[in-house]
């Protein structure tokens, strides 16, 4: 044995070298493990991303089902309202502004005359029509109908004329190109009777052709619409058409903003729900036809108005 070998053995250098070599191969093995694991990470990461996507789908589906549920509940509530015995019979003022729709107006008025709830007054505001509207109005002979003259400054100003003259405890609305569901006023009275703390309700709308109503072409078939009330959503977009809204009448308001003429329903609902939530009433309020010419919700400056309303209630 050489002197060097003897020296190595005496100082233990050989043992140390062996241990270092073993540790090195151990480190190699560890490195392979860590590497192998890292290669699986993208796969898990993809899996996680996929789970996130599933979660979004799940939320969408949940919303869809909630919507279908609301639609099914419409049948239940309307059936209930049709059979229930009302405990009160408040006067309901129906506000109906009109201009140059002599051909359509009788149909709208007829849908109020056909209400199963009898204690209403209909305030028709003729907003400076130049067609045969005065003749149509003169021919109406139900004492519950009151004809008022508008100022010719648009539907919002005309509705304010009606609000100033209204005597009802409750206020409902109708536009001249729509038709009210025969049980709507009954449903409104029942809802306010059931829920004394409620200030404003809105019901469901049936639209013959939603695509055409939105100016997106068509044709489509009638569909029912009833949004869940959520103030944050309302601050972003409208949730209810004019004819589906009803509220208690207060001396302090509401008033229609006369600078708004296409999204005044949205502005009204925002005014009425500043302090309390609206009740979503699962009952059909009106039938909305998209075939009438000159519909206000299609007028050219509607985008500018949307911005105006958003900024008012921000």
């Amino acid at each position, binding site marked *: 044995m050489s002197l*060097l070998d003897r*020296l190595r053995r005496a100082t233990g*250098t050989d043992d140390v070298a062996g241990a270092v070599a073993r540790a*090195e191969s151990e480190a190699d093995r*560890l490195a392979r493990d860590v590497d192998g694991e890292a290669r699986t990470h993208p796969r898990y990461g993809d899996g996680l991303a996929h789970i996130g996507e599933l979660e979004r789908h*799940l939320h969408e*589906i949940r919303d869809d089902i909630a919507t279908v549920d609301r639609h099914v509940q419409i049948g239940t509530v309307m059936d209930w309202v049709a059979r*229930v015995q009302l405990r009160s019979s408040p006067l309901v003022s129906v506000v109906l502004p009109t201009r140059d729709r002599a051909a359509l107006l009788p149909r709208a008025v007829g849908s109020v005359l056909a209400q199963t709830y009898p204690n209403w007054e209909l305030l028709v505001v003729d907003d400076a029509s130049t067609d045969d509207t005065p003749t149509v109005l003169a021919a109406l002979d139900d004492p519950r109908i009151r004809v008022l003259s508008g100022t010719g400054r648009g539907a919002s100003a005309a509705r304010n004329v009606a609000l100033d003259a209204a005597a009802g405890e409750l206020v409902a609305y109708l536009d001249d190109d729509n038709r009210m569901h025969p049980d709507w006023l009954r449903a409104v009275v029942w809802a306010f009777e059931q829920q004394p703390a409620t200030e404003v309700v809105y019901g469901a709308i049936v639209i013959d052709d939603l695509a055409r109503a939105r100016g997106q072409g068509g044709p489509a078939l009638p569909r029912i619409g009833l949004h869940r009330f959520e103030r944050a959503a309302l601050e972003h977009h409208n949730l209810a058409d004019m004819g589906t809204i009803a509220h208690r009448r207060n001396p302090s308001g509401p008033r229609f903003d006369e600078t708004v003429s296409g999204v005044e329903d949205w502005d009204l609902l925002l005014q009425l729900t500043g302090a309390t939530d609206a009740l979503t009433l699962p009952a059909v309020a009106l039938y909305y036809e998209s075939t009438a010419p000159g519909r206000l919700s299609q007028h050219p400056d509607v985008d500018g108005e949307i911005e105006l309303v958003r900024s008012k209630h921000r």
Partner: protein
Amino acid sequence: MIKQRALARLRRWAGADALAERLDALEARLGELGAAQRASAAEHARFDAGLEHHGELERHLHEIRDHVATVERHVQVGTVMDWIARAELRTSPLISVVLPSRNRATLLPRAIDTVLAQSYPHWELLVVDDASTDDTTGVLAGLDDARIRTFTGPGRGVCAARNVAIDAARGEVIAYLDDDNRMHPEWLRSVAWAFEQQPDTQVLYGAFVVDDIRRVQREGSGELPRLFLHRWDRTALERHNLADIGAMAHRAGLPEAHFDEALREMGDWDLLLRLTTEATPLVLPAVACYYESHAVDRLSAGPTRVVDADRVRNKVR
């Protein structure tokens, strides 16, 4: 100096320096690997959390599936009711309607009217006046339909009163109504049709509408009318009731069709449990009754609720 230089040469000669370098390198490498391992562990923790979340999603999915099944049953109610309204019945069994009442003289006529308004004519109504002290006697004396029979109950509660009517019933089928509820005009026709369709069915329950379920469950108020039609599940029934008494019907003469007179409020739940020990009930997607939560002294809001629930549960345990 000389000694140190000799030592250094000796170290090199014995390979100790090279070993020291390898040890340094190894240390650095292990440090890196350690960091990589910790990073990997953190990733794994994230994946594990994600997987746990996956379990939660699965639960949500089951809830959604149940919800869809419920909505589907509710939609089917419309289909079945439309069918029944147009179907031609081949039989016309007598249906006995059991209606116990106590001190509800103002509500009772409304309940009775909903039986008189049935589109199916072949019924008998057994009204049991359970020792009323108000004008109930006068109300009952004013009824003049030959199909109505009135009885006097022993004043021992609604269960004993219902047993009086069951013992006197002449019908092939028994249905129920409570004095504060209203029967759907097509309900008896639906019952006749269902038992005709399914000769082996002994028991069924239909849908019921509740005006404000929150008030009924004493959790405030403010809910709007909702339809209830629970799917049949014996295990669920052992935990809680699935149908209001006004939504239940069964063939007459069943030995189990007897109310436990020790119960005040939950006789209906107990009845459904007894009737379905052997038999599976038919879930009939048709509205049976309208339940109003406004009536005063509702039994389901009474003081014996907890005691009753315990008694019923103990029986099936």
